[in-house]
């Protein structure tokens, strides 16, 4: 088995890429709700 094969099986899909895929697939309206909530949360916490 080559080194390349081993690393692919061990690591699996990158969670950041998965999250980004889900974000890209989201409807624009939901993106707006999430962005708005995120901004509100950040300013409230900071």
């Amino acid at each position, binding site marked *: 088995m080559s080194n390349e094969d081993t690393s692919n099986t061990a690591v699996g899909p990158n969670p*950041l*890429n998965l999250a*980004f*895929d889900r974000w*890209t697939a989201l*409807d*624009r*309206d*939901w*993106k*707006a*709700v999430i*962005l*708005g*909530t995120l*901004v*509100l949360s950040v*300013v*409230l916490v900071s």
Partner: protein
Amino acid sequence: MIARNTARVAPGVAVLVAGAAVAHVLSTVVGVNRLILAVGLGVVVANSVGTPEWAEDGLATHKLWLETGIVLMGARIAVDQLLSVRLSLLVLVVGFLGFSLLFVELVARNVFEIPDRLGSLLAAGYSICGVSAIVAVSSGVRAKSEQIAYAVATILLFDAVTLAVYPTIGRLLDLSDIVFGVWSGISMVSTGPVVAAGFAYSEQAGQWATITKLGRNVFIGVVAVLYAVYYARRDSDDASAAASWRSLWEQFPTFVLGFVAVAAVASAGLIPSAIVSLLERGYQWLFLVAFVGLGTSIEIRNLRNTGVQPLLVVLASLLTVSGLSLLASLLVFG
């Protein structure tokens, strides 16, 4: 992949932000409202040098910034004031929505004798929320692609015209903020131009215009389902498939829920006033960025593709609905 997608969108977003900054600086020099300048800047660039291909994906994000701005605007809404007029506002919104739908349908079919499906696209587009409504009802109406193109071009033309004309008429008639906001929210076409015209008039007018317009937008699902049922029955298909709760929900503008949630949190006193001011500055900048993109989406060359009859149908409807809703807004809120 993240880097590739970010690189695809970032240049256009940077153009939007740069345009917003230019509009902001220019407004302090020439004394013209910065929101109008932002739209104007976008129109001038798109129709002179054109928008470069590398910026197109980023420029297309302008509706996301508008909707995010509207969600944040929930923090600034005077909920108590809104609740005190909720019944009158609701009656006006629903009444004029129904009237506009019927008026456009009747004028399109009986006066200008344009095809039923094109008339329905124009009716949904004019009475609810412009291009989004046309797209939402197009499959239920089973419209041809050239009919969709005609309807979209007609609605975009009226978006551009009303955005320029409404604030001018408002100033000439010296309308109060609430009357101008409710009037433009009821009788203008798409959400972007309504918000732009409202905030160009005043902060308060912008808030009333947005709330009124959101009130219209939430009916998009109902109208899309009604049209789907009507055309399915007329074409002798299975109407029950078209009228599902799922299709109602799919058409619902969900960002309105975000706006309502933020307004509820703010009205419960959970957001300190300093934060509300910060959020206000935030959504004003988001609107500015969005309006540069709105301007770049107005291509005058494409607007020439409207047919004369669809144009006359919407013109007749706009003049009637605008006149009547102005009178009604003056009577109720004047």
